[in-house]
């Protein structure tokens, strides 16, 4: 850290002062901090625990109702899966190509377009909701899963994240690959994608979660109840109805399992690349 002579950094103590307490006092402080953090973590997780306990309070009957006797909620779950998987996979495909252009291809106006991406990314979704409605009407996608999937594919966040990831790929690697094959798509598929696999998975999981939790867009872009995702239908369940807890548990099972499976890649994608 570069600093002027005679000035201390913020965390530096006066010479002779102990930065940390040693021995028993340090252990007590650490233990107290650990207890506080555990309590805080339990506080954060408590709604999930409450939902899980209440969902199983009547045995498996609420889940039998969810799967068999209340098929509208199961259909909502299926709609959520279709919309989220399609939109997130499309997002990754488009964003990898866009990220390659932003990170590795030099052309006039590249920075301007990239900053436009960032500006659009920072806009609240309500700003683009009306244009999405108009476009869905114009393309006759209104009240169809396409009205959710198509706008969901072209989200700027994934391109932004993958651009940062792709900047870490050495240019020499691409130049060496170009000697073997002149095809850019083959270079992307065979060289770049395996190299930035954690970043791609991170972008995919985050896009999936964003689409999964979308509430306002389906209300505006769809009107048939059978096509609603489960996020909308959860509002219709009566308070205190155990089926509501079972449906909520099923609702957050998919992103929970995905995140659990890809935890390492998501952490690497957000941690290592997000800091750059």
């Amino acid at each position, binding site marked *: 850290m570069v600093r002027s002579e005679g000035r201390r950094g913020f965390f530096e103590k006066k010479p002779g002062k102990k930065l940390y307490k040693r021995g028993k006092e340090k252990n007590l402080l650490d233990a107290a901090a650990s207890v506080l953090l555990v309590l805080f973590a339990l506080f954060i997780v408590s709604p999930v625990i409450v939902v899980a306990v209440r969902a199983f309070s009547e045995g498996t009957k609420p889940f039998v109702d969810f799967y*068999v006797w209340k*098929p509208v909620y199961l*259909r909502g779950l*299926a709609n959520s899966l279709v919309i989220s998987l399609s939109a997130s996979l499309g997002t990754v495909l488009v964003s990898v190509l866009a990220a390659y252009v932003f990170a590795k291809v030099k052309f006039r106006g590249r920075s301007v377009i990239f900053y436009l991406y960032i500006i659009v990314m920072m806009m609240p979704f309500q700003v683009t909701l009306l244009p999405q409605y108009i476009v869905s009407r114009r393309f006759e996608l209104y009240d169809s899963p396409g009205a959710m999937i198509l706008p969901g594919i072209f989200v700027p966040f994934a391109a932004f994240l993958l651009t940062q990831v792709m900047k870490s790929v050495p240019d020499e690697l691409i130049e060496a690959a170009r000697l073997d094959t002149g095809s850019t798509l083959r270079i992307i598929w065979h060289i770049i994608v395996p190299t930035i696999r954690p970043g791609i998975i991170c972008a995919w999981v985050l896009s999936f979660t964003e689409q999964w939790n979308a509430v306002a867009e389906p209300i505006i872009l769809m009107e048939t109840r*059978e096509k609603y995702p489960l996020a909308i239908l959860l509002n219709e369940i009566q308070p205190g109805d155990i089926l509501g807890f079972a449906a909520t548990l099923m609702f957050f099972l998919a992103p929970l*399992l995905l995140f659990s*499976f890809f935890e390492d890649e998501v952490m690497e994608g957000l941690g290592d690349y997000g800091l750059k």
Partner: protein
Amino acid sequence: MKIKRIVTITFFLLFLASVAVFVFFGPQIRAALSPEVTYDYPNFAEAGGRMLNVLPSSAVWTGEDGGTYVWKISRSDEFPEPAFVVNACPLAIEKEKDGKVYFGFSYGSIDSSDAVAVGWDTDLKEGMCVRPER
């Protein structure tokens, strides 16, 4: 770490498979789980100088409150396939004779166009899906 991945992906695939199975084969599963009931429509008969509805005595059951009820079978729009559910309807019996019950018209009860369950093997519950057979 590897065990965690195997367990997680197994659960996720089971989750996807369960959703797919119940979405595509839900009607068949519901039909298999629904009890079969025999139904009939009320007939007319004269009793004591009045025209009354007639049903077999097997259609009538006593509720927890001591009242007499029948199971009315009606179409349900809750399911993607055509399905029938039973709802309890009160019945004011005026006369019972030779295995038949005679009742008049009353608000909230059944009329001659309503299908009524006259025989069932398993206990029925309000709103339960059934497979009506004549």
